[in-house]
C-alpha cells in the first residue's frame, strides 16, 4: 500500500522536563487509529527513549512517523555529536549521561537496547560531528 499518514514532531533539546511530548502525542494518534494496546505500548516506549536520547545527547532533534496499513516507521533525526562506537552504545548498561541526568532516573544505559527490544527492525546511521538518524519499524500483525 502506497498511502500512509505522516506525523512530524520537533523535539526540544532545551527542556528536559517536557521531553516526552512527542511520544504522548504519538500514543494519542495510535489510540485514535485503533492500533492494538501492545503495539501502542512498544512504539510509545521506543519513541520516548529516542526522544530522551536526543534531549540528553544531541540538543534536540526531530521525529517523523509514517503510519502504513501493515507497519509503522519512526525516524529520529538529530544533528548532535554522533555515536563513535555503535556496538558499545548498544550494550546494556553503557552510558555517557551526566550525573544530573542520572539523578532524574535516566542514564542507565538501557535506551538504545529498549528501542531495539520493542521494535522489529532498528537501523542506526551516525557520523561523528554530524549527527544520528535512527530508523525503527514495527510491523502490524493481524
Amino acid at each position, binding site marked *: 500500500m502506497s498511502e500512509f499518514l505522516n506525523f512530524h514532531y520537533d523535539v526540544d533539546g532545551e527542556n528536559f*522536563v517536557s*521531553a*516526552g511530548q512527542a*511520544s*504522548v502525542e504519538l*500514543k494519542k494518534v495510535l489510540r485514535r487509529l485503533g492500533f492494538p*494496546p*501492545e503495539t*501502542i*505500548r512498544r512504539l*510509545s*516506549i521506543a519513541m*520516548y*527513549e529516542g526522544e530522551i536520547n536526543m534531549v540528553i545527547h544531541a540538543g534536540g532533534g526531530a521525529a517523523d512517523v509514517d503510519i502504513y496499513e501493515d507497519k509503522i516507521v519512526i525516524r529520529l533525526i538529530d544533528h548532535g555529536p554522533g555515536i563513535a562506537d555503535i556496538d558499545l552504545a548498544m550494550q546494556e548498561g553503557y552510558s555517557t549521561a551526566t550525573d544530573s541526568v542520572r539523578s*532524574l*532516573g*535516566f542514564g*542507565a*544505559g*538501557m*535506551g538504545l*537496547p*529498549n528501542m531495539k*527490544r520493542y521494535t522489529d527492525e532498528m537501523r542506526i546511521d551516525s557520523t561523528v560531528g554530524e549527527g544520528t538518524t535512527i530508523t525503527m519499524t514495527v510491523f502490524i500483525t493481524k
Partner: protein
Amino acid sequence: MTVKEFADRFGLKPLSLPEPDREVQGGYCGDLLSWVMGRAGADAVWITIMSNVNTVAVASLSDVSCVVLAEGVTLEDGLIRTAEEKGVNVLTSDKPAFTLASEFGGAV
C-alpha cells in the same frame, strides 16, 4: 483486582486515581526509568521512590496500572494534575519498597 481494591486492601493512599477500575496484573520495582520501560509489563504495579514528571510519563507510556511511591514519597501538586490528565494512577505508602513488594507478592 482493580487499582481501587488494591489500594484499599494494602492501605495505600491515592494521590491520583483517574482510572480506579483498571486491573492490576503483576509488578515491577525500580527507580531507573529505562529499566522500568524495559521490564515492567502492561497493567503492572510499579513500586518506586522516583517522583518527577518523567515518572508520570514513563507510567503512561509503559501502560502500568498504577505507580506506588514508597517511603512516604509524594507528588507535587502540579504533577498530581498531570497524572490525572494523563490517566495515571498514583498511590503512596510510608513503607519501604521491599516491604511493599513482599506484601503485594502473590496478590497480583
